[in-house]
C-alpha cells in the first residue's frame, strides 16, 4: 500500500495596503484536525497585527475534511472582534457553511457566565448564603441520629443485629492485620528514635514508660481511628452515596423503611463496638514493637520491660484511650454516613463524598483528641 502523503495546507498572502488597510489572504490545500492548529496560529498572528481594519480570507482553493474549519472560523471571528478588525470569509464550502449556520449566532451572555467578581467579604457572604443548607442539613442529621440512638436503646430488639454483626466483621475483624502491622511499626519507630536518647542517660528501662503511656493513651486510639476512617468511613460514604444517587435511599423511605434506622444506625453501632476493641489490639501490638527495640538495641529482657510497664501504666491509661476511641467511632461512622446521605450528582458526587468523609473524619478525630487531652488535664485525671 502506498503511504498516504500527509495532507498539508499552504497559504499565500497578498497584502493590499491601499487607503483602507485591507489584507487579503487566500488559502489552498486541505484542512483537517491534524493541521488546523498550525493554520490557526498563523492566521491569528495576522489578525493580531492591528495595522489592518479589514481582513478578507479566501477559501476558494481550500478543502475542509471535517468540522475543524468551522471551529477555526468561529475562533478567528472572536480574535477579530477583540482586535476591532472586520473579518470576511469568501468561498466557504457548503458543508462548513451549514455547520456554521447550525451553531447559530454568538450569544452575548455566554461569555459572562462566570458572574461578577466578588471581593473577600462578599465571597464569605456568598458562601454562607449558599451553604447554610449544608449546615442545617448536618445539624438535622445529628439530631435525627441522636433520636434514633435513644429510640434504639429503648427498643434493642428493633436493631438489625444481623447487619451489625456483618459490619463488625467488615470493619473490625478484617481490619485486624493492618491495625496490628501499623501499630507495631509505629511502636517500633518511636522506641527506636527514643532509644538513642535514653541510652545517653542510662535510662534504658524507661523505654517501657515511654512506649506504654504513649501507645495506650494516644497512639493506639489514633492509629486505630485513622485506619478505620480510611477503611470504613470512606466505604460507608461510598456505599450510601451510591445508593442515594440510584434512588435506593428514596425507595427505602417510601417503602416505610427509615434509611437512618436501616443504613446509618447499624453502621454507627458496629463501629462503636469495634473501634474500642481495635484500640486494645493496637495497644498490644504497639507495645510489642517497643519490646522488640528494647531487646534489640537497649539490652533489656522482655521480663524487665513488662515489669516496668506494669509499674508505668495504670488502668486509667488504657481505659482513657479506649473511651476516647468509643467517641471516635461515633464520629467516623457519623461523618461517613452523613457524607453518604448528602451525596448528589452522579459518580463525581460519590467521589467527592468519599474524599470528604476521610478528610473531615481525620480532622474531627484530631480535634476531638485535643479536646480530650485538655479536658482530662483540667479534670486532673490526665
Amino acid at each position, binding site marked *: 500500500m502506498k503511504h498516504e502523503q500527509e495532507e498539508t495546507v499552504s497559504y499565500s498572502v497578498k497584502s493590499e495596503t491601499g487607503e483602507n488597510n485591507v489584507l487579503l489572504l487566500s488559502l489552498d490545500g486541505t484542512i483537517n484536525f491534524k493541521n488546523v492548529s498550525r493554520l490557526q496560529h498563523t492566521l491569528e498572528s495576522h489578525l493580531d497585527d492591528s495595522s489592518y481594519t479589514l481582513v478578507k480570507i479566501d477559501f476558494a482553493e481550500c478543502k475542509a475534511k471535517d468540522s475543524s474549519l468551522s471551529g477555526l472560523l468561529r475562533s478567528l471571528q472572536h480574535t477579530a472582534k477583540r482586535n476591532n478588525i472586520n473579518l470576511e470569509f469568501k468561498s466557504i464550502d457548503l458543508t462548513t457553511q451549514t455547520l456554521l449556520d447550525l451553531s447559530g449566532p454568538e450569544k452575548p451572555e455566554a461569555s459572562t457566565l462566570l458572574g461578577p467578581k466578588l471581593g473577600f467579604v462578599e465571597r464569605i457572604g456568598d458562601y454562607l448564603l*449558599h451553604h447554610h443548607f449544608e449546615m442545617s442539613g448536618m445539624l438535622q442529621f445529628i439530631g435525627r441520629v441522636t433520636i434514633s440512638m435513644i429510640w434504639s436503646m429503648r427498643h434493642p430488639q428493633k436493631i438489625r443485629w444481623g447487619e451489625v454483626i456483618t459490619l463488625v466483621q467488615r470493619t473490625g475483624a478484617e481490619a485486624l492485620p493492618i491495625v496490628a502491622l501499623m501499630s507495631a511499626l509505629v511502636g517500633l519507630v518511636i522506641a527506636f528514635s527514643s532509644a538513642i536518647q535514653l541510652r545517653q542517660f542510662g535510662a534504658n528501662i524507661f523505654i517501657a514508660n515511654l512506649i506504654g503511656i504513649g501507645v495506650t493513651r494516644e497512639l493506639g486510639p489514633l492509629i486505630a481511628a485513622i485506619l478505620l476512617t480510611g477503611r470504613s468511613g470512606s466505604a460507608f460514604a461510598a456505599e450510601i452515596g*451510591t*445508593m442515594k444517587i*440510584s434512588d*435506593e435511599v*428514596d*425507595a427505602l423511605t*417510601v417503602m*416505610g423503611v427509615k434509611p437512618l434506622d436501616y443504613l446509618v444506625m447499624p453502621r454507627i453501632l458496629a463501629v462503636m463496638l469495634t473501634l474500642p476493641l481495635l484500640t486494645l489490639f493496637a495497644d498490644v501490638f504497639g507495645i510489642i514493637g517497643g519490646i522488640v527495640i528494647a531487646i534489640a538495641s537497649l539490652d533489656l529482657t522482655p521480663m524487665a520491660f513488662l515489669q516496668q510497664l506494669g509499674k508505668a501504666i495504670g488502668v486509667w491509661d488504657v481505659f482513657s484511650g479506649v473511651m476516647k476511641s468509643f467517641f471516635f467511632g461515633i464520629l467516623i461512622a457519623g461523618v461517613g454516613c452523613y457524607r453518604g446521605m448528602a451525596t448528589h450528582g452522579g459518580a463525581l458526587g460519590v467521589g467527592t463524598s468519599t474524599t470528604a468523609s476521610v478528610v473531615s473524619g481525620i480532622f474531627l478525630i484530631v480535634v476531638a483528641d485535643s479536646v480530650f487531652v485538655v479536658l482530662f488535664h483540667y479534670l486532673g485525671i490526665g
Partner: protein
Amino acid sequence: MEKEPVIKVRNLTVQFGDNLVLDNISFDVNRSEIFVILGGSGCGKTTLLRHLLGLRKPQGGHIYYNDVDIVDASEKELEDVQRGFGVLFQSGALLKSMTLGENVALPLKESTNLSDELIDELVKLKLSMVALGGKEDLMPSELSGGMQKRGGLARAIALDPEILFFDEPSAGLDPITSAELDNLIIKMNATLKTTMIVVTHELQSIYAIAQRAIMLDRESHSIIAEGKPTEMRDTSDHPLVKAFFLREAVHT
C-alpha cells in the same frame, strides 16, 4: 366511575435556589384512575413526583391525600401516608446488595409481622404477577433493564399500595418491553383498582395507558393542558401541546 379525588394539589410552588421549577400549580387525581404527568425533558415532572411522594418539601402550596396535607404534616403523619404508596423509580432502584426476592420481601418484613413462610409465598406471588416467577434468587445486576423495572414494580406492589407511582417506566426500554410494561400497568389498574400516577414523555405509552393527564411546560413552569391525551391533541390550541403530540420541533 365516580370522581372522587384522592390527591389534591393546590398552588404548589417549587424552587431550587433562584431557579423556579413549578409555579403555583393545582390539580386533582381521582381514585382508581391512571393519571399521567407529561411534558418535555427538564419541565419538572420528576421534581413534581418527588414532592407528591413527600421526599422533598415545596416552597409553597399544599398536597392533600384524603385531606391530610403532607406539606405541613408531622413526620409520623407523613409516614402513615407514605405507607399507602408504592413507587417504581426510573432505574428500578432495587437494592443492589440483595437478591430480587429479598428486595420484594423487604417492605413486608419491615412493615408487617408476617411469618417468614407467608412472606416467602407473597414474594413468589408478587414476582409471578410481574412475570418474574422463579427468579427470586438472582441479584439485581444479573437482571436485564426491563426485568429490573418489573422487579421494582413487584416490590412496589408488595404491600398492596393504594397509590402507585411510576417514574418514566418506559425510559431505556425497547418498544416491546415497554409495551409489555404498559399492559402490566393497565392490567393491574383494572384488577387491583389502584390509583396510578405515571410520569412519562413516551407518546406510545401515553396513548396506551393515560385515562387523564396534565402537561407541564418548562417555560411557564405550569400546567398547559389537562384532560384525555387524545382530547389534548385534538382540541388544545397551545402550540407546545400540539408540537408535543405531533412530535414536532418548536422554533422559538
